[in-house]
């Protein structure tokens, strides 16, 4: 479903991704872990074209991202994204945040978009907050709205960029629960995260990145219990 080959990304002189190869299958849940500055967020952002690719190739669901003829907006409709800082639209009510893309991009009727949005908000447990503005929500609620918003375009893949890093510890759980449900429904997910517990429990595969490279990957059991590489061991000994 996602095929990344020899992905390189430079910001000026700064070589952030140094040849990343990665294949992600349909319905697979992949967690990407690693220290700050390891390139994991950049890696994720390359997958929906928020960062341009310096060299290499990414194929998302048969769309080649490195091909200038690819309509990036079609790819983005198939790959929803959830951000660390939620990035909800503060001038729109919660329900309108969720309805915006289906209505303006997806060309569905208003009733259809609304029914869909209500269903998604109910799914993330926020049906009651439909008509409020994002500014009055807690961080955890905002992130759940952001997940509903990303799901509104019926993406085949969901990309999560440290979705719980900006949250108070006691509300991290409510967001992780929603993500767990999503994983159980068979969504293909790539999750950049510092939540090792979540990675261990939900991921089919864990990727450890450091200094722009995938150092090690395997099942959560392999990575967390018997890491092979010294850098993986060093990182895990500090965070676990």
């Amino acid at each position, binding site marked *: 479903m996602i095929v990344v080959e020899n992905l390189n990304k430079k910001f000026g002189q700064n070589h952030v991704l140094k040849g990343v190869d990665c294949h992600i299958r349909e319905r697979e849940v992949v967690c990407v872990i690693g220290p700050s500055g390891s390139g994991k967020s950049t890696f994720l952002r390359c997958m929906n074209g928020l960062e341009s690719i310096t060299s290499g190739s990414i194929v998302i669901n048969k769309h080649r991202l490195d091909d200038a003829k690819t309509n990036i*907006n079609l790819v*983005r409709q198939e790959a929803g994204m959830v*951000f660390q*800082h939620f*990035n909800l639209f503060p001038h729109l009510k919660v329900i309108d945040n969720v309805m915006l893309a289906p209505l303006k991009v997806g060309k569905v009727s208003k009733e259809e978009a609304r029914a869909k949005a209500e269903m998604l908000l109910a799914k993330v447990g926020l049906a009651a907050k439909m008509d409020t503005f994002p*500014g009055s929500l807690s961080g955890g609620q905002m992130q759940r709205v952001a997940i509903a*918003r990303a799901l509104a375009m019926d993406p085949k893949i969901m990309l999560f960029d440290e979705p719980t890093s*900006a949250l108070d510890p006691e509300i991290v759980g409510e967001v992780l629960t929603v993500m767990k449900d999503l994983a159980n429904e068979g969504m293909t997910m790539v999750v950049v995260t510092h939540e090792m517990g979540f990675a261990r429990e939900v991921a089919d595969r864990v990727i450890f990145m450091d200094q722009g490279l995938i150092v090690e990957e395997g099942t959560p059991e392999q990575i967390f219990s018997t890491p092979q590489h010294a850098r993986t061991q060093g990182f895990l000994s500090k965070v676990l």
Partner: protein
Amino acid sequence: MFRPFEWQDLVPLAEGAWLTIQLCAVSGVLGVIFGLILGIARTSPSRIARWISTIYISCVRGIPVLVIIFFVFFGIPLLFPGLEPDKFSSAVIALTCFAAAYVAEIVRGSIEAVEKGQSEAADALGLDYWRKLRYVILPQAVKIMVPPGIGFLIGLVKDSSLVTVTGLLELTHAGNVVTNLTGDPIKTFLVVAAMYFAICYSISLLGRLYEKRTGIHVDPLKLPEPAGL
């Protein structure tokens, strides 16, 4: 030869004030429209659009308003023989050219002040450039541009007094005419000043009203702050 300042002298002054209001309303609206277009062009992904608007804005901002007024008033009939706009039209053209450049900078600043994550979130949802601008960026930018925009419009009203040099009978010019009749510049220009003040103060009241009405929903200080800080 002079006669004292009388109540009837308020009539030409009121007429002048009304002309000033019309002048500023028309050039203000046109200035905002062209300023929006230029400001959007200034932040557009198209290099040519950015280039053209940048050149226009820097040129106009580097020229005194009075020179623009003279240039339009005397220049247009010479550059386009046969085209002789009346005084009001030349004043509108000059003030619009001037206003567009300043409004464009306010628009650019406001668009850039919208948090970068908003643009990324719109991108990630698959909105193209125009939809992103229309539904995500501009609604937020407009709220940011209102306070400086109101400030600029007030400045425009005051700068419009410069078109008095073309002989258009706007408020300042009317003040001059009445002074020549009455020989009483103190009373006359006190009235003129009071009228300018009334116009400007009304604009700032309108601005405050707008801010109060929209401010309920979006307080830039209360935008989603990363929690846990």
